[in-house]
């Protein structure tokens, strides 16, 4: 469900929010809150803290709406506030807690996303050791069954947080790479590395279910 499909819708939505339309506000919260929690989780140590950061962000949004100039989209503005708050919070906690996440994985572009054991031949230049099973033709996958969706959701729950941030925004929320890079403060290249590793991990999670075999 798109909260604001185009610029006109966005202007209209903004006008309703500024006029105090609580229904419009609830729609915006419903639409963005879950993805915001997942993004915040990339910076803080627990889901509970992420929820707090997101709630604080909504309060900052409410107070800031009149000053929002509309240079960025509303969602970019909201998520930029979120990331700033989550980073500030994460930084505070890292002084008292052992480092929660940092996988630092954006730097790992050189690490293979598919295990080398799947290939035969010269290292880095191998061919598939076994044929790749055609499980993507299985009706459960092709028709987006509840079971296939749950397999994807399960992989996302266990995914390293940085790559999950990127996949949530790109593939679940349908953001552009530019928006994701702006909000998360990462380069296009790192964004693609993280997205690739996330997608390949989801693919591996589906493969592990052994569809059709």
């Amino acid at each position, binding site marked *: 469900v798109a909260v604001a499909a185009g610029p006109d819708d966005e202007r209209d939505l903004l006008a309703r929010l500024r006029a105090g339309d609580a229904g419009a506000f609830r729609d915006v919260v419903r639409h963005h809150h879950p993805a915001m929690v997942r993004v915040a989780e990339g910076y803080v140590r627990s889901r509970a803290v992420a929820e707090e950061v997101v709630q604080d962000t909504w309060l900052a949004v409410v107070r800031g709406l009149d000053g929002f100039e509309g240079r960025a989209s509303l969602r970019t503005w909201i998520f930029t506030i979120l990331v700033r708050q989550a980073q500030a919070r994460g930084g505070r906690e890292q002084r008292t807690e052992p480092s929660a996440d940092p996988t630092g994985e954006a730097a790992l572009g050189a690490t293979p996303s598919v295990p080398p054991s799947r290939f035969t031949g010269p290292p880095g230049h191998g061919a598939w050791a076994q044929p790749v099973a055609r499980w993507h033709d299985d009706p459960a996958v092709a028709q987006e069954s509840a079971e296939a969706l749950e397999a994807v959701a399960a992989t996302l729950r266990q995914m390293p947080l940085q790559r999950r941030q990127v*996949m949530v925004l790109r593939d679940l929320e349908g953001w552009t790479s530019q928006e994701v890079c702006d909000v998360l403060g990462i380069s296009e290249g790192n964004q693609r590395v993280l997205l690739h590793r996330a997608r390949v991990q989801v693919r591996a999670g589906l493969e592990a279910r052994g569809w059709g075999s």
Partner: protein
Amino acid sequence: VRLRRRPLACQEVVELVTDYLEGALPRGLARAVERHLAGCPNCRAFVEQVRAAIRLARALPPEEVGDDVLDALTRAFEEYHDGGGDPPRAAP
């Protein structure tokens, strides 16, 4: 001058899939990926499976926001608007 790239190996192709799907590869390299895919059913299956992963991720049902959270935030929104952020509504 057209440089013919050496053929890519499967293990190289799988690492280029997202860059390829995003249209982020230089033209020569994108062509090399296409040439490899044309002759490699295994890598074609891999690409189809990455596409399936994307499609399924896009189809995930949205998570729900708890009513308690939604209500608390709505109250904060209403209080802000009733409490002076806005000029009072004109009396009829």
